[in-house]
């Protein structure tokens, strides 16, 4: 059975976690605990960051010279380290912020492949497109409901997802109008 899947459980891809932490350290030094709390507040979505991820990222950045230990404070448990961003860290952060993300070009779309195969096998491509449209719209309903009950951050994240799904839907609509031309092309 089809169930709409809302995938944005965690806003920040794991690849950009170290740079995100650099950004959170930029205004002032912070403990690992503070970083985790700040991260969860801004980017956590449904999935709070694990402490292990924070300390693993900090350890890597210490090794790379992007952060440094600005102080150690004794506590009940292990000593608490306060981390600060270094000049190299600031450079890394601002280089990343100034670099555009590669625009995703879906040139190997499974959906496109399915449409061509539907034409080749004599299956009605309109059925396929309608079914996909219904699935996309089901997901868009989930996001719309989530957005209506959410704070501004949730609204912005949901808008991003909604606009991408809408782009897919426009492709589905356009393709539906070109099925006859595609049949002619595929039959050659």
């Amino acid at each position: 059975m089809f169930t709409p899947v809302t995938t944005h459980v965690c806003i920040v891809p794991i690849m950009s976690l170290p740079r995100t932490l650099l950004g959170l350290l930029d205004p002032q030094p912070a403990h690992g605990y503070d970083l985790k709390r700040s991260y969860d507040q801004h980017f956590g979505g449904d999935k709070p960051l694990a402490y292990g991820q924070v300390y693993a990222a900090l350890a890597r950045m210490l090794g790379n010279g992007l952060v440094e230990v600005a102080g150690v404070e004794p506590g009940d448990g292990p000593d608490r380290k306060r981390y600060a961003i270094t000049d190299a860290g600031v450079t890394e952060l601002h280089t990343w912020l100034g670099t555009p993300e590669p625009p995703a070009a879906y040139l190997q779309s499974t959906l496109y492949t399915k449409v061509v195969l539907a034409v080749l096998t004599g299956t009605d491509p309109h059925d396929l497109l309608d079914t996909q449209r219904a699935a996309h719209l089901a997901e868009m309903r989930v996001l719309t409901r989530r957005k209506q009950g959410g704070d501004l951050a949730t609204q912005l994240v949901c808008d991003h997802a909604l606009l991408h799904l809408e782009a897919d839907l426009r492709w589905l609509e356009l393709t539906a109008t070109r099925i006859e031309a595609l049949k002619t092309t595929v039959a050659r």
Partner: protein
Amino acid sequence: MSAVLEAEGLMKAFGPTAALRGAALAVEAGEIVAIVGASGSGKSTLLHCLAGIVRPDAGTVRYRGTDVTRMSDGDRSRLRRTEFGFVFQFGHLVPELTCLENVALPLRLAGVRRRDAEARARDWLDRVQVEQVAASLPGEVSGGQAQRVAVARALVGDPSVVFADEPTGALDSLNGERVLQLLTSAARRSGAAVLLVTHEARVAAYSDREVTVRDGVTRDLRVPA
């Protein structure tokens, strides 16, 4: 649940052009249904037939079991006034009346006394968060405010069905969303069904389900179980 509004086998041609070729649709009380389709697909003609504005060449439209297509023009007009609400793309507010008077208009036409009608209209302007434009003429307010006034006017008479034809088509994204949220949440609270004609997926996403119109034929789009 039984359908509050149900159409079967609708046919409608304008001269040699067939707009509807056997369209069918059923909407239950409190349900929000999006009618989507490309320009010229027949979706607006379908809406007009369902609302009793246009009489189909063939087929039936039943409102709570009564065939609307067999009603006299006067009865259909009364039905639209008392049971239905309308929101159009450009508001269609009466330019000579204030926003408050526009919202009160359906009640006044139904015979409600001015003071009562305007009290209810003011309450609705408050609900759609434009109480500050009550004394303004439609030409003096923004497009987003005018469309909220239109939403208030559509719902003030406590209709069973609201027909919304591209209600956000003339608004920017943010204003469009606010109008949609107000329309759908107010309709859900009052239990009114909404038929929402749109070509935009983000608008259709506010509905409970979607019916597509292609070449005058309807298709109920559902994800296979």
